[in-house]
């Protein structure tokens, strides 16, 4: 699949000499959902604002559809949409005017039937004559999405799309994002909700202190860096782990009935068949077996901690 976005060695300093981005390199494939993860202040918003032309970057180049975004800003911006993190809207304007205004800004001829379809898709049609100030937070977020989609972009940036929204609305938003992607829109979302990235994305990048520290397929990342824990529940409590099981670093829970062993999916050090045989050999009767895999969140925290430690060492 071809790259729709290519970022090469992009560096951005703010006026106060704070380095917001440092030699960022990233390729985004057409049609994918890409999640940019990072703690607050890591540079996520600065990166997407640089791509969208909202802030100037200092060095490097950014290409959309193989066109430089500075030299060919008219062509590249026409196919790009952005949903900002904050609910930045003109409170006294109606939904209808707001969305049509956005379409006009992006150089598109008025198309009321398209805007009608869009508002219906986003469940905003019955609110079209309402002023923005009369809408709920969730509705406002939908208006921002409608504005970003008003000029039919091929590349959509969602900056923390579900920040400060309730769980129900978050799931609702995820459905909207999935539907857009099915319709052929490439989506790049920044988030610090790991479950969002886990639910939606095909690939993930982790950014910390202005640097991309990792880019990988979401599933591969979980597999590569993930740890798995096997929990074996016994019929009878045991006092301590000994015998054949002592070689596995098992831990015993407070009930003295559940023994847990954590291993890396990538390493071949743990043979589960042999482990279960050893349990049997030691005379324990197994009531239940459960396995837990580390989430993207745990991987993310681990990566950020490692990166921060490295920064301190340097």
């Amino acid at each position: 699949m071809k790259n729709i976005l290519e970022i090469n060695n992009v560096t951005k300093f703010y006026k106060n000499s704070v380095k917001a981005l440092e030699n960022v390199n990233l390729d985004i494939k057409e049609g994918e959902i890409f999640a940019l993860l990072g703690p607050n202040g890591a540079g996520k918003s600065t990166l997407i604002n640089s791509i969208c032309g909202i802030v100037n970057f200092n060095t490097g180049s950014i290409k959309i559809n193989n066109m430089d975004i500075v030299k060919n800003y008219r062509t590249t911006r026409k196919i790009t949409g952005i949903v900002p993190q904050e609910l930045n809207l003109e409170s006294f304007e109606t939904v209808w005017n707001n969305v049509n205004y956005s379409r006009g800004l992006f150089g598109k001829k008025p198309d009321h039937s398209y805007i009608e379809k869009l508002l219906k898709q986003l469940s905003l049609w019955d609110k079209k004559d309402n002023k923005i100030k009369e809408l709920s937070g969730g509705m406002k977020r939908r208006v921002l999405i409608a504005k970003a989609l008003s000029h039919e972009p091929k590349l959509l940036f969602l900056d923390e799309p579900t920040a400060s929204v309730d769980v129900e609305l978050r799931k609702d938003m995820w459905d909207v994002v999935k539907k857009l992607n099915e319709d052929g829109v490439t989506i790049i979302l920044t988030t610090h909700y790991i479950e969002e990235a886990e639910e939606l994305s095909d690939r993930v990048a982790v950014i910390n202190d202005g640097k991309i520290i990792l880019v990988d397929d979401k599933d591969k990342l979980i597999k590569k860096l993930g740890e798995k824990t096997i929990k074996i529940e016994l019929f009878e409590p045991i006092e301590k782990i000994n015998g054949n099981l002592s070689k596995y670093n098992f831990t015993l829970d407070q009930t003295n009935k559940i023994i847990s062993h954590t291993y890396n999916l990538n390493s071949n050090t743990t043979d589960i068949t042999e482990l279960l045989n050893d349990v049997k050999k030691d005379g324990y009767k197994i009531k239940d077996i459960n396995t837990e895999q580390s989430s993207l969140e745990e991987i993310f925290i681990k990566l950020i901690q490692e990166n921060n430690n490295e920064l301190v060492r340097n």
Partner: protein
Amino acid sequence: MNWYGIKAIYIHEMERFRRTLFQSLASPIITTSLYFVVFGSAIGSRITEIDGINYGSYIVPGMIMLTILTQSISNASFAFYFPRFTNTIYEILAAPLSSFEIVLGFVGAAASKSLIIGCVIILTANFFVDVRIDHPLLMMFFLILTSITFALFGFIIGMYAEGFEGLQIIPILIITPLVFLGGSFYSINMLPEFWQKISLLNPVLYLISGFRYSFYEVSDVSLLTSTLTILTILIGCIIFITYTFSKGYIIKD
């Protein structure tokens, strides 16, 4: 050119004007009426004529210029600062619009609003005094050029302002005194020689003088000097905005 984009900004801004139509028009109408009451009646009873023109009629061009200058500046500065304040500016910056197109949309709308208000003041003045316009085309030339020039000036203020207070400082501390001291309500020939020379350093004097000439064919300075002054200020504003954008556009840093 992104004509749809320019049109979107222009209509968006004019829509704001429509929403606040009453306050947009009521304020200049009331102010003009008050000026006629205070200056026209109180002072006009002592100064009956200046350069052969009835005092009440004489001050009309100055009053229009005062309103055009302040309205152009405040309309354009507020129009560009407000989206910066609400952060809705992101959309304009992310749109396929050149700096020129952004300026054209905002300044075009601000100048249009000022022109409408200017025309309303001329109509209002007609209720109080006889307003004669000897050179209507010249009057429109000055009116349009002044509206555009000071809307550009307001746009610059909107770009640099760090708060709503910043929008008011230059209009209140610089523009209004310059207009009052620029012969809005008197001819500089009425001043002592020293103050006449000082007044000639005030660029607004040339705008008012040229504008008054289009009404009554009387002026403190030559028409050519007035025209060159307004064109110089216009070019100065264009150069300043071009320079700011070429340096990297302050808003995007």
